[in-house]
C-alpha cells in the first residue's frame, strides 16, 4: 500500500507573518504527528515544519500563500490540523 500523502494550500493571516510566536505553534503542532510535514512558498524549497528555525527562514509575511505537504501514516490528520491552525489566524 502506498504511503498516505497529500497537500493543501494555506494563507498566512497573522498580522506579523510567521514570526516567533506563530512559528513556535506550527512546529509544536507538526511535532505532534509522526508523518513528515513540510511548508513551501510557491515554487520554493520545502522546509521542515517541525523545525522552528526552518520555519523562520521562510520569512512568510501576512498574505503569503504556502503549500503544506504531509507524508506518512497520519498525513491526513496532520494536513487538516495545519489548515485549521492557519485559518484560525492563531
Amino acid at each position: 500500500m502506498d504511503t498516505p500523502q497529500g497537500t493543501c494550500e494555506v494563507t498566512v493571516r497573522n498580522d506579523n507573518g510567521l514570526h516567533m510566536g506563530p512559528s513556535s505553534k506550527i512546529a509544536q503542532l507538526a511535532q505532534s504527528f509522526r508523518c513528515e510535514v513540510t511548508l513551501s512558498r510557491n515554487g520554493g524549497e520545502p522546509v521542515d515544519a517541525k523545525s522552528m528555525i526552518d520555519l523562520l527562514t521562510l520569512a512568510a509575511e501576512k498574505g503569503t500563500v504556502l503549500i503544506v505537504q504531509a507524508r506518512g501514516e497520519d498525513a491526513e490528520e496532520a494536513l487538516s490540523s495545519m489548515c485549521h491552525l492557519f485559518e484560525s489566524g492563531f
Partner: protein
Amino acid sequence: MRIFRGIAVSRGVTIAPALVLGSENFRIPQRFVSVDVVDTEVARFQEAFDQVCLEIEQNEKVASAQLGNQYGAIFAAHLQLARDKKLRLEIESLIREKCHSPEYAVSKVLRNYAKVFQNLGDQYLAERAVDLYDLEKRLLRQMLGDRREELTNLTQPVLILAHNLTPSETAALDRSFVKGFATELGGHTSHTAILAGALEIPAVVGLGDFLSDIAGGETVIIDGNHGEVIIDPDEATLERYRQSEAEFRSMHKRLESQTQLPAVTTDSLEIQVQGNIEFPEEVDQSVKYGATGIGLYRTEFLYLSGEKEPTEEDHYQAYRRVVAPNPEMPVTIRTLDLGADKLPKSMRALSREIDNPFLGLRSLRLSLQNLPLFKTQLRAILRAAVHGNIRIMFPLVSTLLELRQAKMILSDVMEDLEYQGVPFRRDVPVGMMVEVPSAALMADEFAREVDFFSIGTNDLIQYTLAVDRANTQVAHLFSSGDPSVLKLLERIVSAARRASIPVTVCGQMSSDPIYSALLLGLGVRQLSVTPHIIPEIKEVVRHLSITQAESIAAHALTLDVARDVESYLRGELKKFFPDLMM
C-alpha cells in the same frame, strides 16, 4: 590618563587596580578535540543543552505566573527554538564529524543562522538574530562556566569595571576586596545603583562604551561624588584624589557621630528623614543611620529573588521582620511595583519583546490584572500591621478609577480576613505614589481619597520629560531640577496641604542634598532617602531655616531651564553648608 564621565550613584572616592569583567564575550578555549573524546564531548554538549532548556522553561513559568501568559509565550517560543532538532543535530554532527569542540560548534552553527536571519530582508527577523546570540551565550555560559566566578576568589583590593552588573552580582560583591565599581550601563534608579549605595562603596554607572581598551591591572580612580572614572591617573591627580579620599572619610565619620540627633531646622522645625529599603535586613541599617521611619519598603525582591511566586507566609514573615525591631516606627509598604524593566538577567529577552515597557503592564496595573497575586500581598500586609505601624502604598496610580479599584480590593481582602477570623488591622492608612503626571495634575481629587501622598520622583521625571534614564543616549535629558518637575511638585504639595494629608518625597531626588532646601521650601516635611545618605541629609536640614528654604524654592520656581535651577541650588547649598563635600 583618561577620564570618563558617567552617573554618580554611590558617594566616595576610591583608588585601586582595575579588574575588568568581560562583556560576556566568551573566549572559546579550543576549537578542536581529538577523535577519542568525541563521545564525551557530545555528552557534555547535550548536558549543557538540557540545562539551558530547563533554564528557559523556568523563565517561562516565572514570566507566566508574574506577568501573564502573553509574556510567558515569549519564552515558550525561545524554548521551541532551542529545542529545534535540526540545530541540535547540526551541532552534534560538527562535533562528531569535524572534531569541533562543543563550544566552537555551538558558536559556529548559531552565528551562521543569525547571519541568515539578518540577510532575509525582514526587519523583525533580523532582530531575532539577537535571540540566537542569546541562546549561544546561554550555552557557552553553561559549558564554560561563568567567568564571573573570579569575583569570589579575590585576594587583594580591586575596582570592578564591567559592562553591567546585575543586582544579585552587586549584592554578592565581597566588600573586603571590592572597593568600588563602574559600569557602562545603568542609571541612577537601577537596582544596581541602589545596592551600591547600600554597600557603601563608591560607584559610577552609565559610562557608555569605555571598557574596550582597558586590560585590567591599571590604576583607577572612581569618584562617586562627581561621576568620574580616571584610568592611569598622573601623579598630581593621584595626589589630589588621595587627599579627597581622606577628607571624605573624615566627613563621613563626623556625620556618623551625629546620626541619632533629630533633623531640626535652625528655626526649630523637625523634619522626618526616613529610609528607602529593598530587603527586610536594611531596616537595621536605616535605624543605625538615624531614620525615623521607613518611607518606602520596595517589595519586588520578594518576587525576583526566588524562582516561585512568594506565598502569603513569605510576605508576612518579611513584613514582620521589618516592623518587629521598632513596632512604633512608621513603615510604608509599597505594593508590587514589578514591570518588564525589572526582570532578572535570564529573562531580559522579555523587555526586548515588549514595546514601551514603561507604558505597559507594570506595577499597580499588573496587580489589578492579577488579583490572586495582589490579594496575597494585601492579606500579608494587613496581618503584619497588627505588629507594627504599617502604611500601605499603591504605586503608579494614574487614574482615580484605578485607586478606587485598588481600595475596593483592599476592602474585599479585609472582609475575607474577618470572615476567616484571621487577626489583622483594619485602620491601616492607605496612600499612593504620585509618580505619573496625570496623578500630579489631579492631585486635589486624589488627596480627598487617600491618607497620604508619596512622591516618586524617578518615575515622575521620567514620565514628565519622556526620558528613560537607563538609556545612555538620552540620560542627560533627565533632570530633577527641570522647571516642569518643580511645578508638578508644587502642585502636589499644595494639594496635600489643602487636604491636610502628609506628603513624603521618596525618589532619588530626596537623596541628593542639593534639592533638600527646595523640597523643604515647597512644604515637604518628610523625606525618604537611601539609608546611608540619611546622616548627610539630616545635617543639611540642620543648617537651614524654613524661611530660607522658602525663599530658595520661590526663586528656583522663577527659573526656566533645568541647568539654571541645578546651578542655583548647588550655589545655595554651598552658601548655607560650605563644609559639605560635593
